[in-house]
């Protein structure tokens, strides 16, 4: 789960969900699937509809079949399964670039086409690095360092990259 916004709310929200995930594991003896966590996050956010968590989230993970999924949220819990997304202060800079590069099928098409992006892992990571380096140029809040989390069948891996420090 990646969150942008007010840090104290972000930490509180992530802590809340981590606790709920632990309870789920105790009760069901398995990890929560990404779609399940997606619904939980939405409900948690809407619970504070009238005093929101100032947190703009993107949730990524694997569903019950092991396929990757990405969910994007607003601060009060509206969510959608997408092929890619960005949130936060740099999102206006990043999103159009992602649209251009990933050529996701139009949501108006019938029959509906899958939103899965066709990139290999190395290409995807490279794209993420490019996108953040570009956003750091023009968004004053983006910069210093980037953390990339890669989730696949082999497990979870983290990579770090320095960004412009100004």
């Amino acid at each position: 789960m990646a969150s942008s916004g007010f840090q104290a709310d972000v930490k509180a929200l992530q802590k809340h969900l981590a606790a709920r995930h632990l309870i789920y594991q105790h009760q069901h003896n398995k990890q929560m699937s990404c779609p399940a966590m997606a619904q939980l996050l939405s409900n948690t956010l809407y619970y504070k509809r009238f005093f929101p968590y100032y947190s703009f989230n993107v949730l990524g993970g694997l569903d019950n079949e092991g396929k990757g999924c990405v969910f994007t949220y607003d601060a009060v819990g509206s969510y959608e399964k997408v092929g890619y997304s960005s949130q936060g202060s740099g999102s206006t800079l990043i999103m159009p670039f992602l649209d251009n590069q990933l050529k996701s099928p139009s949501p108006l098409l019938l029959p509906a086409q899958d939103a899965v992006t066709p990139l290999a892992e190395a290409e995807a990571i490279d794209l993420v690095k490019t996108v953040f380096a570009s956003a750091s140029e023009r968004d004053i809040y983006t910069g210093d360092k980037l953390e990339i989390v890669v989730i696949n069948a082999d497990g979870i891996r983290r990579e770090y990259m320095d960004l412009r420090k100004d």
Partner: protein
Amino acid sequence: MNFTASKQPENCLLGPESDSQRTLYPYVTGTSVVALKYKDGILMAADMGGSYGSTLRYKSVERMKPIGKHSLLGASGEISDFQEILKYLDELILYDNMWDDGNSLGPKEVHNYLTRVMYNRRNKFNPLWNSLVLGGVKKGEKYLGTVSMIGVNFEDNHVATGFGNHLARPILRQEWHENLSFEDGVKLLEKCMRVLLYRDRSAINKLQIAKITEEGMTISPPYSLKTYWEFSAFENPTQGAVGSW
């Protein structure tokens, strides 16, 4: 006990009656706290001033206190709220000791507790108007964290509150390194405190430096820093200035 009928419930945010129940602005405040990790533990510095707006009202305020066996808390902001936090922590440590189970709260746990307290008060629109620095050592592991009045918290190798963030941290980013000796750590902290003394109007030249290691906590007696005001730019401030408007 309020026997007169209230028009609104006490916890209502609107109306003058309930405003007397929550913090709106600070009164007596302390300025920056600066702290860093060094070889044996944590070093923390804070001056002893308690300002009442622009008046220097109190000149012997101890803004750093030991918490339990393993932690040291430094605070800036409203002094009365700091005293209330010490009361909360007193109770926390008491309950921890009463378990009598050989375990004791470490700095990480105390920091987490403080974060929860500050965040929850912020959510009730009744903040404790402080920025806190929590440092300590437990089982050889050094810990240094900070929490603000709205619940923003993080841990790092060096932290500061208030003006310290703007004036001291850049110095620390350049000159801090792992395994600083005690002497080097003190020199570095004094360098930061000197800059703050020159440039922060609420800083006073009477400070303490506290040290916490695995062995325990010590706090220096109050002392003052040597300052230099003979810079030629100060003596002739208008020299070389262009024009007069």
